[in-house]
């Protein structure tokens, strides 16, 4: 909770800009030198998708204190909204071959479809929020979980098959890569578009949290009764947080569809919500940078680094216990360790600052000399 002096603030901004520029340079380099199917590309893409959803859930659970478990449901709406408007025109009949003539038979530009996806999720969340936001903590959790399950059933229902393709996957979707293939940006079409969407979404959420509305959210989280007594309209502010969170979850869902390339309702179960919630916890409830960091770490370890645990050889060790499913066991144990012993996650409710890193690096020699515990990473509000 240290407040930076004006001079430090300036330094911090400079550091942030440098970091950001470096990050973009790295991404451009990755996009230019990698194949679109390289693991690093896939992991970064999926990390972006998760970062959006995780941050959106953190807005709700971490900053407003509403324990909602409906994230998968809103992602589902986003993914479907995006998909029905993004099927390749030539393949549409084939995709819907089991469901009858498709109702929607045109393709929208990719960005429009993504925004539409967010809006649809926001609309649904508004309707769902009207009854359920009055509920208290765990009841709210179970009610939102229930709504997500109901939504999934409805989407899969064959009576809506001509829109949603029922239980059949919607494939042949529009992708950034296809859109940018013949343009000057062809070499920037793998991670960069995902990254841009993620930066915009997370940026907006961050701005909101730092606005007067964000303070009102935190007030509700800290003490509902006091917040109401200070003139904060609980119903309205909870709804704002819920709808905003769902809007970005919807966008996350749409991006998920872009990432997978096809959409199917089956993966959007409560298990997905739990996964996202656990990433929020790992990153630190109430920390945006923690959420982002945790998303990328989680995806990278799950999809990439720890794969060896499943296939017999991990870090050069071969053992018969490394067989299918072991990775998930290790994963759940790590998560339990976090939940029980590092309840504040990687970042707690603090934020990461590039100035902090800069100082940490500068102080590194001194630290090695013995002052181990002192100021490794400066933190800032």
């Amino acid at each position, binding site marked *: 909770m240290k407040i930076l002096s004006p001079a430090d603030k300036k330094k911090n901004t400079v550091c942030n800009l440098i970091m950001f520029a470096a990050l973009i340079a790295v991404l451009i380099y990755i996009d230019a030198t990698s194949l679109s199917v390289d693991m690093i590309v896939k992991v970064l893409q999926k990390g972006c998708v998760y970062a959006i959803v995780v941050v959106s859930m953190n807005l709700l*659970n971490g900053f407003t*204190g509403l*324990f909602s478990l409906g994230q998968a449901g809103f992602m589902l709406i986003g993914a479907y909204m995006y998909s029905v408007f993004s099927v390749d025109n030539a393949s549409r009949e084939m995709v819907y071959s089991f469901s009858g003539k498709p109702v929607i038979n045109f393709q929208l530009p990719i960005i429009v479809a993504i925004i539409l996806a967010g809006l649809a999720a926001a609309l649904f969340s508004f309707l769902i929020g009207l*009854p*359920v936001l*009055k*509920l208290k*903590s*765990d*009841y709210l*959790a*179970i*009610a939102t*979980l*229930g*709504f997500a*399950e*109901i939504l999934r*059933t*409805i989407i*899969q*229902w064959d*009576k809506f098959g001509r829109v949603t393709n029922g239980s059949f996957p919607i494939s042949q979707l529009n992708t950034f890569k296809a859109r940018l293939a013949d343009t000057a940006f062809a070499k920037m079409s793998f991670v960069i578009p995902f990254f841009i969407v993620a930066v915009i979404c997370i940026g907006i959420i961050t701005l909101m949290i730092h606005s007067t509305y964000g303070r009102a959210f935190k007030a509700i989280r800290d003490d509902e*009764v006091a917040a109401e007594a200070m003139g904060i309209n609980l119903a309205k502010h909870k709804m704002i947080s819920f709808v905003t969170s769902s809007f970005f979850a919807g966008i996350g869902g749409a991006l998920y569809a872009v990432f997978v390339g096809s959409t199917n309702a089956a993966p959007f179960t*409560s298990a997905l919500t*739990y996964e996202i*919630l*656990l990433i929020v*916890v790992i990153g630190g*409830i109430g920390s945006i940078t923690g959420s982002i960091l945790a998303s990328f770490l989680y995806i990278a370890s799950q999809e990439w680094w720890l794969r060896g645990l499943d296939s017999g050889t991990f870090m050069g060790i071969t053992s018969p216990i490394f*067989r*299918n*499913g*072991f990775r*998930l*066991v290790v*994963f*759940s*144990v790590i*998560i*339990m360790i976090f*939940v*029980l012993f590092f*309840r504040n996650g990687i970042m707690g409710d603090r934020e990461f600052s590039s100035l902090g890193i800069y100082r940490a690096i500068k102080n590194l020699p001194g630290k090695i000399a013995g002052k181990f515990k002192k100021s490794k990473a400066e933190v800032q509000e």
Partner: protein
Amino acid sequence: MDYLLAGISVGGQYALIAIGYTMVYGILRLINFAHGDIFMVAGLIMVYATTAMPLYLSIPFVLLVTVIIGVTIERVAYKPLRSAPRMSVMISAIGVSYTLQNIALYATGGLAKVYPTIPFLSNTVKIFGATTKWVTVITPVLTIALVLGLVAIIKFTKIGIAMRAVSKDFETSQLMGVKINRVISMTFVIGSFLAAVGSILYFSNYPSVVPTSGSMPGLKSFVAAVFGGIGSIPGAVVGAFIIGICENLIRAVSIGGVSLTPFSDAFTFALLIVILCVKPSGLFGEKVTDKV
């Protein structure tokens, strides 16, 4: 008739799980998300136990091991968080549920395990023109017997009185010298024991165990507990029977030729949401007002 019979039987099994939810909630104010998975684990242990020992040994073995697992989970995952915010404890419960499922996945290799046949329970019987298994008939009877026993324990024994005290006011009863940890362990013992009994009945009826077997019955039992008024044992039982019967009856109806069968689960959730919004305290629950 078939639908009703199936409903009553399922209801009985939900009731046994729902009691575990409702008791834990009553005392710790925690939705024990892992309860459904304990139920699944009990099923898996039975599968493995019967390959190693005869049936008359494996049934008590399963009951014992399940109780131990239940209490261990409480000790490891919930006890350290007793003073933490409610959200942390609930997240821990979700974590435990995730862990149990993954361990089960690893152990079974993702294959569905066939539940062993218990000779008497699995025999078929004909009543009221409907053919079914003995277990269907026995379940409601056994459930009610167990619940009566449980109510007796809570009413008349010392630990039962302590339980009621703790569920009314956690801190005060602690100050009054109630051994909180013993009471909580006892709650988990009873809850896990009933879940194990429920799992034997349930899987004898539906003899296939997969790592996710526990999640749906678990959720529905929770809905039943809420429906009956969470914290109330008779409420949980009544709620469970109502939900069991309703979800089976909905499969029998069709509106305008459109079958509603896909919505049997969705219906349970819709019911839950309606109850929460209209009467959050459930059928038999007490209304709690927040103190300012």
